[in-house]
């Protein structure tokens, strides 16, 4: 060991290479650090402000170290803040979003799994063409469907209702979930299905006993993708619902748009966090699957 380190000191080229390597490392961490600061700053600002008192924010500015602490903003944003005449905070909208997102996520994921199973393991003449048709739904801009949806929801009596949004999101979501599951199931060897058929298993038994037990990875990816996507959606929410029936994204815009009065950054910060929390939690706990969903959604 001693010999080795002596040799290193004695070798000027090695020392220079060492210095270059160190400089490179510093540059790498430096650049990453700066970007990390930019990426984290908005989150930090919002979190801090949600615990500050509004007068102190007004005095010291939005971006500043907190010199007060209160939970007032959170309770106000949750339960009592006034948006457009009603003073119930975000609670109701938060629950609306849950009531919309959870069923829509479950239903669209289940349908996607079944469709993916059929389209990968029980192909029939024309099934590829049908798959392509379903795929087009991924690319449709929501704006194209606004008027037809408004009409259909009206006929079904689902205007201004969370059920209506569930329906819209399920049908829009089928394309994604089918795409995800089908591409995953394609990688399950066909021999497995053949073996099961020789073993006497039919369509449903093969799905239940063989395909479904292999599905958790893709189901988690799909659920995460659908959950964050539907929770964060705004266009359909603002168009098809109003007031107390709105999902949280629409309510947030209504809350922060309250133009004339002085901005209450404390409450708005808490409200923004309430709206961002569920997808953020999903992201922090399912990050690996979240990334997998992104890459799958993009590259296929």
């Amino acid at each position, binding site marked *: 060991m001693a010999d080795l380190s002596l040799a290193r000191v004695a070798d000027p080229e090695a020392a220079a290479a060492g210095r270059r390597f160190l400089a490179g490392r510093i540059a790498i961490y430096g650049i990453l650090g700066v970007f990390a600061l930019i990426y984290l700053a908005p989150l930090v600002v919002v979190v801090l402000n949600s615990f500050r008192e509004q007068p102190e924010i007004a005095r010291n500015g939005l971006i500043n170290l907190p010199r007060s602490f209160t939970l007032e903003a959170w309770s106000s944003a949750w339960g009592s803040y006034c948006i457009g005449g009603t003073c119930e905070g975000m609670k109701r909208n938060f629950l609306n979003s849950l009531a919309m997102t959870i069923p829509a996520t479950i239903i669209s994921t289940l349908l996607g799994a079944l469709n993916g199973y059929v389209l990968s393991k029980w192909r029939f003449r024309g099934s590829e063409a049908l798959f392509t048709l379903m795929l087009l739904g991924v690319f449709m801009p929501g704006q194209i469907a606004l008027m037809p949806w408004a009409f259909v929801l009206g006929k079904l009596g689902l205007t201004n209702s969370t059920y209506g949004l569930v329906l819209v999101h399920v049908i829009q979501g089928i394309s994604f979930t089918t795409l995800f599951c089908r591409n995953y199931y394609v990688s399950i*060897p066909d*021999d*497995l299905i*053949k*073996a*099961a*058929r*020789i*073993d*006497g*298993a039919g369509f449903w*038994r093969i799905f239940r*006993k*063989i395909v479904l*037990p*292999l599905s958790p990875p893709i189901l988690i990816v799909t659920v995460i993708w659908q959950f964050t996507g539907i929770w964060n959606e705004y266009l359909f929410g603002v168009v098809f619902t109003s007031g107390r029936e709105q999902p949280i994204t629409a309510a947030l815009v209504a809350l922060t748009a309250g133009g004339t009065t002085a901005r209450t950054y404390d409450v708005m910060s808490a409200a923004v966090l309430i709206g961002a929390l569920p997808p953020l939690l999903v992201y922090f706990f399912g990050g690996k699957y979240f990334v997998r969903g992104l890459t799958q959604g993009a590259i296929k």
Partner: protein
Amino acid sequence: MSSLVIRSLRKNYGAHEVLKGVDLEAQEGEFIALVGPSGCGKSTLLSMIAGLETVTSGEIRIGGRLVNSVPPKDRDIAMVFQSYALYPTMTARENITFGMESRGVPKAERDAAVKRVAALLQIEALLGRKPGQLSGGQRQRVAMGRALVRDPKLFLFDEPLSNLDAKLRVEMRTEIKKLHHRVGKTTIYVTHDQVEAMTLASRIAVMHRGELQQFAEPHVTYNRPTNMFVAGFMGSPSMNFIPAQLTRADDRVAVTFPLADGGSAVLPLATDVAAERIGRAVVLGVRPEHLSRYDAEIHARKPGIATLSAPVEVVEPTGAETIAVLRFGALEVVGRFEPDSAPRMGERIRLGVDMTRACLFDPETQRLI
């Protein structure tokens, strides 16, 4: 009684013909190997026997019953797949019993069957493990267990050894042979490996481009191949094909072909077949092991040996034997020699050709004369 009969079986995918009318039958307890290069239709044929592919025309009978439209599970067959197709989320035991469960066999009966099969294959200790925790050879055994437990009329194997390494493949080959001997069930075995076919089968069906080329006992397929495709496919290194002319020499029918030094070789045939073709072109087929260093003493005792000499271009010792590439005119000819009498690189060797084992083919039809 025939346990499998196939009559003029055809399969088309749209305009593409995969099987062009295949006839085949297996006697009770027979081991039939389906061999051929990839894309020859052998796996499609197996899938059709299993009921996993539809029949375009023709008929398949298992144990006398027409099964063209019978679903796989009711055909009384079992199948071992190339990829093993073990259900990855189930233990070895669950894999083996899945089929019985599907058919509603009571638990006591299932347990007894697993016990019997596990003992037979010596996999008792592995039953609680999942496929991911098993080695290649162990997976292979479990896959066979899943097939054996059904006690079917017909066993189907789809290249079951091709995913194993060379050593294990030889071991499992022996294992399968023993097993077949003990169980005695009719078996259809698809492989692209002619050695597997030779060692295992009671009869070999050689397929090429959707057609059955030859269906016969291994030694017949090897020694009297019906055409140049079968002759070239069976055996490694392959049979040498030497374009030649049929002539008469010393009152015998002989083949003649040009040599590297400008002269020509004249090899009398062992029998006077094909006398009516004298003067016409033929293809002489000689297997590498039927070439040897000429030894007057030994060869005097053996009839039907013709001689010629040829330069040696490459020598490849493998230990047990030595493969050498020899030059016959414009052709490269491969010979297989005992290491003791092996040629040396650059040598000009005097060869003995065992004409009693040589085959003659018609260059037009490629058929055996």
